[in-house]
């Protein structure tokens, strides 16, 4: 079955077209004023890349902050089950997914059958989120691709004193004006994001392989710092980590993900739990 998953995030719109469990094509577009238009555009692009006609897409599922904006979706799902499902399909050994996006950091426990097993997020306060990185790279006019290289060059990362993202912005600007190296500031910002993610990981009590996903985990410098601070092994998905949630939505659109050929584990649990989020 051909399905499409829409992940409408705070910074990017991700659309993924999948056939059963393989990704046919995907598109990532930046969010803007006219969201409907951007979503339509991204969908069109994803369809073109996967070489699939619009009408052959059987089911569509939307997730993310702006999931309700996707008018043609068959339903909406929270992010956590999408990420859990996608991570489980990509690596059945992963027990924890860390999804670091533009504003939200989600830490999602994944049980051996691919369902969510507790999820934590920074939903009260934007401290230590990707927003920091965006502000700094904008102020320093560093493109996203070179953030990582610059941050890796730093020997003495500058640690940000402010808790609040709004105050951190002014602190960073005054540090730039005071002549601090851009690479030190970038490294400090990445460190604050890592620390925030680690606190969430520590609060969740699952242990096992950790899968890193979300746009920020595309940065090698982030991965290096994260791996240095965490005791469990990490795993980076083989697909673009930014589209994990969209891929998960496409998988969930395909139906009850829990009925994958997992005969053994299924018989041990008599009450089959409903895939979380499917209504």
């Amino acid at each position, binding site marked *: 079955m051909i399905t499409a998953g829409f992940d409408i995030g705070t910074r990017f719109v991700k659309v993924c077209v999948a056939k059963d469990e393989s990704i046919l094509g995907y598109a990532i577009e930046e969010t803007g004023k006219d969201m409907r238009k951007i979503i339509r555009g991204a969908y069109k692009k994803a369809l073109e890349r996967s070489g699939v006609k619009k009408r052959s897409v059987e089911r569509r599922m939307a997730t993310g902050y702006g999931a309700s904006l996707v008018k043609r979706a068959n339903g909406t799902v929270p992010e956590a089950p999408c990420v859990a499902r996608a991570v489980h399909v990509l690596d059945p050994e992963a027990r924890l997914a860390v999804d670091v996006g533009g504003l939200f950091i989600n830490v999602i426990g994944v049980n051996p059958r691919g369902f969510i097993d507790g999820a934590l997020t920074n939903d009260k*306060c*934007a401290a230590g*989120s990707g927003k920091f990185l965006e502000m700094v790279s904008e102020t320093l006019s560093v493109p996203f691709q070179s953030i990582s290289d610059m941050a890796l060059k730093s020997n003495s990362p500058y640690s940000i004193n402010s808790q*609040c*993202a*709004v*105050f951190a912005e*002014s602190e960073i600007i005054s540090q730039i004006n005071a002549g601090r190296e851009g690479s030190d500031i970038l490294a400090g910002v990445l460190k604050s994001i890592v620390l925030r993610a680690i606190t969430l990981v520590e609060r969740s009590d699952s242990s096992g392989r950790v899968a890193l996903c979300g746009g920020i985990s595309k940065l090698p410098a982030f991965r290096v710092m994260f791996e240095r601070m965490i005791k469990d092994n990490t795993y980076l998905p083989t697909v673009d980590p930014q589209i994990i949630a969209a891929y998960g939505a496409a998988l969930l659109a395909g139906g009850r993900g829990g009925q994958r050929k997992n005969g053994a584990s299924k018989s041990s649990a008599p009450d089959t739990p409903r895939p979380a989020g499917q209504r």
Partner: protein
Amino acid sequence: MIAAGCDVGSLTAKAVIMKGDVVIATKIIRDRSTPVESARAVMSEALREAGLVFQNINFCCSTGYGRHSIPFALMNMSEISCHAMGAFWAENSIRTVIDIGGQDCKVISLDSSGRVLDFIMNDKCAAGTGRSLEILSKCIGVPLEKLGPVSLKSWRPVLITNKCSIFMELEVLQHMYKGKRTSDIAYGINDAVARRVVSLGRNVDMRYEVAITGGVSKNVGVVRNLEKLLDIRFKPLGVDPQIIGALGAAVFASLELKKLRNAEVAI
């Protein structure tokens, strides 16, 4: 005898010059690059308004976050004491001061002589301060000083539930996408900021009369929402609420001058 107060805040610098017990000049400017420069600039402009020069100042007291580095100040007092003293000097029935500044927010409770009994302060989070108003007003394209008047036109206000300014920004954008009216969103913004202040002030005993100071008190929307939420009426102070901190500093300076003079007489 000339006493001066200088309040270097996070966004603006304020100066007040007093001759005896009368305020002769006040000035508010946007911050310069360093606290010292802002203090110099605001003080020289205030002096020009009063027709004086730097040498005329007998005693200067500084306050605000840059208070330790002002070269011409002979003493410094915390913003909390200064706001309490300034409001008390302007209206001596004041027992509670709510100060909402550019980067912090505080609720101060005072006794019948203007001394601070208790206070609570938020300087860790931008929610409930002028900073979040500034960000959100930019978001809906209304100038900061119009945010209050615009919000009064609202008749179907939106509710902003997030606590973090950055998440509030997202929520405001969502309301914009939905095509809500600017005045309704402006009301929601003022309401959200007022609610943050109220939840902060819950831990301080608020007694009558209550005064509101700081730059945000110039926003009618926030003030009205606060009055509604707290079920009180603010006592008008008769002076620009933004200069209360500097005024308090000037009052402290003139008190210090009196003390010095009495000491001289005693000798």
